[in-house]
């Protein structure tokens, strides 16, 4: 399998970058779990893939922290689905994390890109 393997993803989960990923995607509009998983897969060019086992516990954790909130949406004759949206707290965390992440990426770029310069 190409891309990041399960163990690596596990590490990312612990490090919190996966949280940033989810918050960023939900910041645009509310989405359900399957949509999130597809978006991450597609936008990472197939490099990132969330399994159910890791995606949902992550969502529940963010919900317990109060960063996102899930709401059930019902449609006639269909299974009800749970949509998640970012809360005000979540939005603040996202802004914080984006800053840190940008700084980190910038730093990495400067170190790794320095040899090419």
């Amino acid at each position, binding site marked *: 399998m190409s891309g990041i393997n399960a163990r690596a993803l596990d590490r990312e989960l612990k490090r919190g970058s996966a949280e940033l990923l989810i918050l960023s995607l939900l910041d645009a509009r509310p989405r359900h779990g*399957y949509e999130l998983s597809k978006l991450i897969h597609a936008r990472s060019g197939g490099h990132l893939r969330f399994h159910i*086992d890791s995606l*949902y516990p992550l969502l529940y954790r963010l919900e317990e922290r109060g960063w996102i909130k899930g709401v059930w949406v019902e449609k006639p004759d269909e299974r009800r689905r749970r949509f998640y949206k970012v809360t005000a707290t979540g939005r603040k965390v996202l802004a914080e994390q984006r800053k840190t992440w940008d700084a980190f990426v910038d730093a990495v770029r400067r170190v790794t890109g320095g040899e090419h310069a």
Partner: protein
Amino acid sequence: MPDPSTARRDWARHIQPRLSPLSLAPARESEIIEEISHHLDERYRELIAGGARPDDAALAALAEFSEENMLAKYMAPLRQSRMPEPIAPGAPARSLAGDLWRDLRYATRMLRKQPGFSSAAIVTLALSIGALTAMFTVVDAVLLRSLPFPDADRLVQVRRTYPDGGGDSTSIPKFMRWRAHGREVFTETAAYNNLGSGFNLVGADGPERLIGSRVSAEFFDVMGVQPFIGRVFRAEEDVPRGPKLVVLSHAVWKNRFGGDPSLVGRAIVLNNEAYTVVGVMPERFRYPDVAELWTLFQFDPSSRDRAHNFEVVARLKPETTLAQARAAMSVAASAIKRDAPDLMGGPETIGLRPLRERLYGDMREPLLVLFASAGFVLLIGCVNVANLQLAQAAGRHHEIALRSALGARTSAVVRQLLVESLLLAAIGGLLGVAVAYAGVPALLALSPVDVPYAERIVLDWRVLAFALTTSLAAGLAFGLLPAWQSARPNLDDVLRAGAHRAIGRTNRWTRRTLVAGEVALALMLTICALLLVKSLAGLQSTNPGFTSENVLAMKLPLPEARYGTSQALAQFAEQVEERLASVPGVRAASIAHTLPLELGSDLPFTIDGRYVPGSETGVGSANYRPVGKGYFATLEIPIRRGRLFDARDRHGSLPVAIINETAARRIWPNEDPIGQRITVGLPFVPDLADPFAREIVGIVGDVREEGLYADPPPMLYVPISQQNEAYATLGVRLLPFSLVVRGDASVSALTRSVQQAVWSVDPQQPTSDVRLMRDVVARSLGSQRFNTVLLGGLAALALLLAAVGLYGVIAQIVGQQTREIGVRMALGATRSNVARGFLGHALVLVAVGIAGGLIGAFGLTGLLRTLLTGISTSDPWAFALAPALMFVVAILAAVRPALRAARVDPVVALRAE
């Protein structure tokens, strides 16, 4: 075959095993299963749309899971995976503490589920526990706790006692004998002036008046107090013409002398004489509680002065009981009567009572009545909450029956219900303490009398312990009955029939009995309150015998050194009255030794031509009051016969006196007192006696000198300018004089101009304690008003609670009988029939309660006897008005549920079940 692209597959069997290692709440687990099922649905549909066969698509969709145990592993740290243990009330016990904890959590949940019931119960309890706790705070400080002196329980007051009462004050010869005889049972016996006398301290900021108590040398030893600095008095200093010494209170030392320790040994000027400061008392010591300093009596042991003008306190020996001391002093009284029959005669004997009774004896009865009333209110409150619980238990029958059916033991169900009651009581009690905390200062502010050591009336651990005990007792009281009744439902009935009909007749009857009882209790309190109201109203309309409107009174503490002779006193009084007469706005003014509603002293007198020496014939006694010429005009006391004092009655002119109607009636029943001559002081108080006879020149109207509730005493008025030397000296020493002024100007303007007039005569003479006579009269009813307001408030609370209880019961009955009402209306009953029926029902309950209450009230009001004036404890007005009031309240309470019954729609009611 269904379209596989839309078909829902059952994913649960794939998901559920992955969640099972977690202890998720069942509801949460099914939510997660649903959410993940949706995920799998979407994936499955996508695969089908991509052309996969259903079974392959399903398998591929399940590949969205990674490993078998990963979901549980990632979920495990989440909060939702740690579900609390289920609460199963009434389940078999494991440990008592655990059970109670579980019961408590369940109880909290139950109370939160029924905010209406909970808040009604909690407010009821908070108010009634608060009222009782506030009363207890006062009762505890005043009647239960020992006084703030070392071994205060050994302090006793030694006093004159007669078969029908007693007197707190005594005379020098009696004190000398009491002290000698008391050595057997008392460690020390001391004399002290309880009212205190004024001492003018001249300092940099002008003259200031301090209250000092004269004491005998043993005083501080008796009280068991050591000086803060310096020393106390010594026996060898307590002799006639001994050194002028003073002990200061901590407050005076701190505030007036800056807490200067070198003050001890130095002299200060009091009443124009130099007193050497020998010591300062510790901060917490204050006795008598008015005292700011103490000086020595320096009695002459050979004095024959019979005037009773100081009090005696003694400390029991450690091994002596009060009863032993009483017996010993009774023997001593016999011995004194044998040795000195002229000193102590007739039925007089020596009595002892704990010092606490001396201080708080008067407050005892009213306090106990109020405390008991607050207890009544709490009882009514408990009945109310029990009622609410019974009503609510009706709704919970199903739940309880179910629990019993599931195997809960009766004891477990009772325990659960009791824990709910106790939780309610605890919350109510906590809020009650808050109510008391706010209420006690208000109570003291409303209090008419200055309660000695009022600073001790605070919420302390004793009060908290009381509130806790009361709350628990209340919780048990209102919890046991409902718990007992609810815990033994007939399971079959309840589970088969709807909850309503199974509530059972027992519950309904219990509730009605409780409400009738509540009505009875409330009625009893209302009757008591109405009795007090009527008594107070009677007193307020009593004519005091003088006009208090527009009269200003103030104290004039005259220093003995300047005004201790009859001539100096006469001159000062005449000059002050003269100056005051010319002050604009003053219509009349006078100086007087004492004023109506103040303590005065009785003096005996002999009637010339009738007195037989050695007998009681021709001896009279009256309240003795030296007054200025303008006294009667200022207070508008009417002259009945003869004349008032005028310019003729000067120092040195023919001595005269005026009596009141009561004195005329009692002492000269069949004669004309005018023109009679009397010698004041003889035969019993020779040291103070007039060395001349006085002619009675007038009779004035009676004044209720001892309060509006007491009959006017006989009075003997003499001109201030015609006092004998001995009385002039003692009078100035014992009590401050007073000024009364009738005027049109404002109080502050009048006060200023009176002060100026006094200063124009003597620039060093302060005035103090300015007050309106109107307020003095009003304040003399303060105790009555206080008792009435408080008991009235408690009775109002009781009525309100009874009304709430009645409302609850009628509303419940209406609720339960909706179907019956429907049937009756369907059969032709009109709406007014129905409403009248329920109203009648309520009134029957109230009538039963009233009957009980009336019987109880006849027994209870006897306790009020000492608090009532001028009316009987079975006053028909109160006994008639209270039930009428109760009926009005009952109709108001029952009218809403009764009207609701009338609005029942028969169609809806019949279809409902």
